[in-house]
């Protein structure tokens, strides 16, 4: 089956996705969809976005052959260096796109949710550059473990609004952002940070992140004269993963989406709905979620705040059921070891989120031994130094 450019159809990925939001937001989603589909074809919009991605954010990012890491894991590993972008993560690809879209729609205020703070920083960055007001919702638990990013957002002129409801993490920040949007829908654009939420968000965010895969394709063909055997990316909501996978979907390439295994799938303390969740509706779309037998959303755990989310993008749920993408998980400890491994072998500090993808290199099926693998290094790890030190028992 061919996948590219076929979905979503009528807002759904073969049953996954949809628009499960209060009526108040439905006209806004329709307006957003129309504006996006129109601008998507607009050459001037494309030129403008490409200009900012190149001159402002730092695209294209390198595809780097990680020689010492490769010999450690027995694979030929290339890293797609999204960590080198402005703000230190792939998130800016989406926030520049959506902010440009919002200005075309005449919106004067941006709101966003953030977990690790990377999407919040990327939104605050784009808002500062385009001169828009920006409010970022962040759970108080995340604010504590990502203090650095909280301060960065404030430096960028954004207001960070603490969310004290529920588990005080990313899912509650999304709830609060949705409530804000319902209240201020006429002036405000909700800049969702991942391929989650109601249609058209999973499509829009995916499309803005596809630049990762498009560049990777060109770069690997240049460097190796062939396509990779597999691509590995971490999956929280799933935007960096779908972004790098998408333009290879119709090729003979295998994909591994790595979720946060937390303290281990069997403990229940994880954030791996694709590995250990079931069908349900959260934040406006039908996908897989972590829930109890009554449909209450369960608390999650991950050392990586950006993966600490009980849901996942509907297109990933679709790909799982299609068998097109493999999903697996690594634990907090494995991610921490990968964090150290990449630092020591390559001099690159990965974000704890991205460290999950690096960690999986040691767990790849045997058939990949010596094979050509691309890993999406979706973000850099400076923000995680404090959490890492704590996990390693080091007092700073």
């Amino acid at each position: 089956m061919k996948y590219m450019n076929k979905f979503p159809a009528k807002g759904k990925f073969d049953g996954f996705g949809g628009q499960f939001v209060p009526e108040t937001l439905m006209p806004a989603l329709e307006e957003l969809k129309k504006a996006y589909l129109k601008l998507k074809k607009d050459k001037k919009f494309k030129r403008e976005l490409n200009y900012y991605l190149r001159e402002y954010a730092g695209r294209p990012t390198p595809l780097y052959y990680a020689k010492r890491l490769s010999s450690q894991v027995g694979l030929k590993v290339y890293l797609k260096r999204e960590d080198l972008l402005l703000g230190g993560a792939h998130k800016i690809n989406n926030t520049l796109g959506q902010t440009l879209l919002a200005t075309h729609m005449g919106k004067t205020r941006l709101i966003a949710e953030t977990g690790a703070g990377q999407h919040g920083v990327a939104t605050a960055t784009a808002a500062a550059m385009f001169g828009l007001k920006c409010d970022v919702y962040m759970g108080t638990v995340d604010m504590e473990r990502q203090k650095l990013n909280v301060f960065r957002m404030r430096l960028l002129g954004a207001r960070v609004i603490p969310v004290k409801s529920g588990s005080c993490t990313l899912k509650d920040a999304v709830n609060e952002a949705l409530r804000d949007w319902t209240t201020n829908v006429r002036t405000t654009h909700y800049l969702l940070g991942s391929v989650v939420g109601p249609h058209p968000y999973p499509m829009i965010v995916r499309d803005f992140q596809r630049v990762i895969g498009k560049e990777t394709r060109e770069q690997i063909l240049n460097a190796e004269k062939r396509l990779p055997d597999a691509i590995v990316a971490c999956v929280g909501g799933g935007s960096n993963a779908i972004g790098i996978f998408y333009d290879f979907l119709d090729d003979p390439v295998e994909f591994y989406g790595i979720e946060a295994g937390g303290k281990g799938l069997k403990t229940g303390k994880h954030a791996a709905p694709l590995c250990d969740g079931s069908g349900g509706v959260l934040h406006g779309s039908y996908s897989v979620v972590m829930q109890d037998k009554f449909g209450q959303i369960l608390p999650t755990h991950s050392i990586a705040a950006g993966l600490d989310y009980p849901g996942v993008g509907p297109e990933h749920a679709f790909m799982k059921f299609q068998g097109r993408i493999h999903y697996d998980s690594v634990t907090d400890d494995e991610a921490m070891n990968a964090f150290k491994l990449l630092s020591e072998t390559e001099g690159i500090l990965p974000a704890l989120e991205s460290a999950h993808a690096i960690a999986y290199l040691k767990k790849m099926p045997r058939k990949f031994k010596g094979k050509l693998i691309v890993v999406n290094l979706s973000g850099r790890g400076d923000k995680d130094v404090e959490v890492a030190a704590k996990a390693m028992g080091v007092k700073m």
Partner: protein
Amino acid sequence: MSRIAAKFEELRRRGEGALIAFVTAGDPKPVMTPKIVKTLSKHADIIELGIAFSDPIADGPTIQAAADRALRAGTTPSHVFAMIKKIRQTSNIPLVVLTYYNIVLKPSLETFMQKLATAGADGIIIPDLPLEEASETRKVARNHRVDLILLAAPTTALIRMKKICKASSGFVYLVSLLGVTGAREKLSDAIKHIIAKAKISSKGRIPLAVGFGISKPAHVREVIKCGANGAIVGSAFVKIIAKNLKDERKMLKELGKFGKILKSATKNQRD
């Protein structure tokens, strides 16, 4: 005729608007709910019972806190069905359940609606299930003679409002403002506009009830005067529960007192 339709018909003949009272089932604990409902039923015309969901995106802080209390007290949908059954033994008041789609979907639409109907509920409101996603749920609800009550908002255009009025059953829930549930000092300016739009759309074929932010007798009077058939009050009742968590008798007394004042505001409005 369904209990809800019969109630609106009865009120129409009497020249009254409906007072629809919302509380979260299991708040502050499951055993309290039948007592609270019994008290409210003395004045309210329809009772709306919330089944708590962990992530209530349409609710403001007051009802979020109520859902938290209910969940912490261990309330499950099965408990709520049992409460409804218990209430039904002694009361014929129309009962509507309000919950989020995931709670309905988890056991399957069919199972949930069947249990709801068997327990004796008359309708269901699902705030995160808009018209486009509602067709299957409508079908299943209809099979079980449960009214699926759809919502319309100030952002809803006329053409869409017409579709919602046509697809909704029992009544149409008009959201009075842009935002989430919660008591407000003043009524939203959007109210007259949305009621007028809904009246054109419904052509009198389905009752209209206004909710979100309605918390005072003057608010109730105003929405009935503007032509709505009912006023939905939630957060204002929930606040009374929250304020009197340790004094059951006072809680019930205050709820009754407030219900009585609100109900009288629905009367003698029509000329």
